[in-house]
C-alpha cells in the first residue's frame, strides 16, 4: 500500500515503547503491531486522535503517502 504508517519513527523520537503506548492509547498490542507493521487496512479517527495525543504529534507525522 502506498500509505506508510510512521508509528515506529514517532515512537523512537518520543522514546516510547509499544507497551507504554498501548497503555496510553488503550489499544491492544496486537492492534498496534498491525498498525506498526503496515498490515492495517484502515484507521479510525478516534485511534488517530489518541495516537496523536499520546505521541504529541500531527496525523501527518504518523501517515505518509509514497508512490
Amino acid at each position: 500500500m502506498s500509505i506508510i504508517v510512521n508509528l515506529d519513527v514517532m515512537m523512537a523520537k518520543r522514546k516510547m515503547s509499544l507497551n507504554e503506548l498501548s497503555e496510553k492509547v488503550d489499544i491492544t498490542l496486537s492492534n498496534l503491531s498491525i498498525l506498526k507493521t503496515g498490515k492495517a487496512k484502515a484507521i479510525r479517527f478516534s485511534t488517530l486522535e489518541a495516537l496523536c495525543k499520546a505521541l504529541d504529534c500531527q496525523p501527518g507525522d504518523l501517515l505518509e503517502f509514497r508512490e
Partner: protein
Amino acid sequence: MQLTSKQILGALQVLTWIAFIGLCIETGAILITTSISLFFHPEAAADLYLGLDLSALLHYSRWYYVQVTSLIIALYALKAYMVFHLIQILQQINLVHPFSQTIAHLISRLSRIAIGTAVLSFIANGTVDWLQKHVVELPNLNEHIGDGAAYLFFAGIVYILAQVFNRGMEIQSENELTV
C-alpha cells in the same frame, strides 16, 4: 423460550446427520440389491428398494437395467455427498467470525456438486422417458431421480451464496485489520 441461532444450528446438524445416514442407507441398499439382481437372483429386481420394481427392464435388457440403476445410485450418492458438505458447513460455522475460507470453499463445492446432480438428474429423466416411450413400461421413478430443475435452482442459490460469502470474507478481513 426463544430458540437461539446456536440451538437452531445444533438441531440442523442433527437433522442433516439423519438425512445423510438415510441417504447412505438408500444408496447402499439399492447398490446391494442391484448387484444381487445382476449376479445372483434376477427376481430381486422386482423390489430393489421400497417397492422399486425394475424387473421388466431387466428382462428386456441387462444393459438398459444397468444404465438406469447406475443413474439412480449415482444420484443417491451425489445427494448424500451434498448433505455431507452441508454437515461440514454446519460443523465449521462460527457465528462470531462467520466468514472463513474453509466455509467459502465448501459452499462453492456444494454448488458445483448440485450442478452435477442437476445435469445427472436431467440425463436420468431423459433416459427414463425415452425407455418408457420406446422400450418398456417403467414404474414412476420421480421419487428416486428427482427434479433436475429444482437441483439447478438450488445450485444457483448456493452459488450466489458462495459469492456473497467471498465478499463477506473480504469485509470481515478489512474489519479485523481496522485499528
